[in-house]
């Protein structure tokens, strides 16, 4: 299983790296700015009628919060994997 998963992970990394390697002059921006453009292109007179209650004050703080979100998730996944492995080997040692 370990080898198989390593191979799958390699696939994920390659998929993320290829665009960076081949599209040298791309911006790799996020969504928000361009989204407004795409919509105003179609509906020129549309005014967003509500804006976010709170926005991260800077890009750095936004990335902090995104990392935090990822860390919380990864922590739980890591805990689960460790717990199940431990349980598995303990159960099998008994027999």
């Amino acid at each position: 299983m370990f080898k198989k998963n390593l191979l799958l992970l390699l696939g994920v990394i390659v998929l993320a790296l290829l665009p960076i390697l081949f599209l040298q002059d791309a911006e790799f921006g996020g969504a928000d700015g361009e989204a407004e453009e795409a919509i105003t292109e179609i509906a020129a007179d549309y005014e967003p009628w509500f804006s976010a209650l709170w926005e991260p004050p800077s890009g750095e703080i936004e990335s902090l919060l995104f990392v935090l979100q990822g860390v919380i998730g990864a922590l739980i996944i890591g805990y689960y994997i460790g717990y199940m492995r431990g349980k598995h080997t303990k159960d099998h040692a008994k027999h």
Partner: protein
Amino acid sequence: MKQLLPKLAYFGIVLLFMPKQAYAMHIMEGFLPIGWAIFWFALCLPFLVKGLQVIRLVVKENPESKLLLALSGAFTFVLSALKIPSVTGSCSHPTGVGLGSILFGPFVMSVLGSIVLLFQSILLAHGGLTTLGANIFSMAIVGPFIAVGVFKLSTKWGLSFSVAVFLAAMLGDLGTYVMTSVQLALAFPSEVGGILGSFQKFASIFALTQIPLAISEGLLTVMIMNFLQKYNMRELVQLRILKVKES
């Protein structure tokens, strides 16, 4: 039709030669007319109510599965935090709802996915509160239902477990963004091509950006399933995902 083709070709060429940030994530705050915002909220409600009931039932019948529920939620949490570069020269993120959908069914994921979307709209200004209903519908309802449907069909057709998981997670991810394009097209039909015209425009951006990410999500979901197959086969059998017990 005659006018449409050159237009599509034009957009294709523009996309190829001017790779810039495309628009491939959740619908932003305030960017759906109020009628549509309410409509999508209303459409989500029954799914969420049913989802809460199913979660209560699952936990009651099988308290051990709480951990697996946590894993499913954590998986979407991680995956929707990962903004990954794509072939269109922009970034988007996977949804991660495929795993939990295969394990617990689509309704459970509609609740877990909503939590993630709520978190992102309040703390990250990503997505939005007014567009929450629409985003829940695409990511936490359409995505999971496609994933479960594809998984069931694939196993019925005799595809291997890993291939079925891969296809389910990948197409669920892709389906989410196709649904987002539909939602935007319905709210913003273009003057020339109508709803179909804007759908083609939104989807041509979405689909392209999301394809490699959807593949990544498929691969990552298979990784977790591989682990579960090795260390938690019992629960997979219990949830009736795998019938045959392998060694």
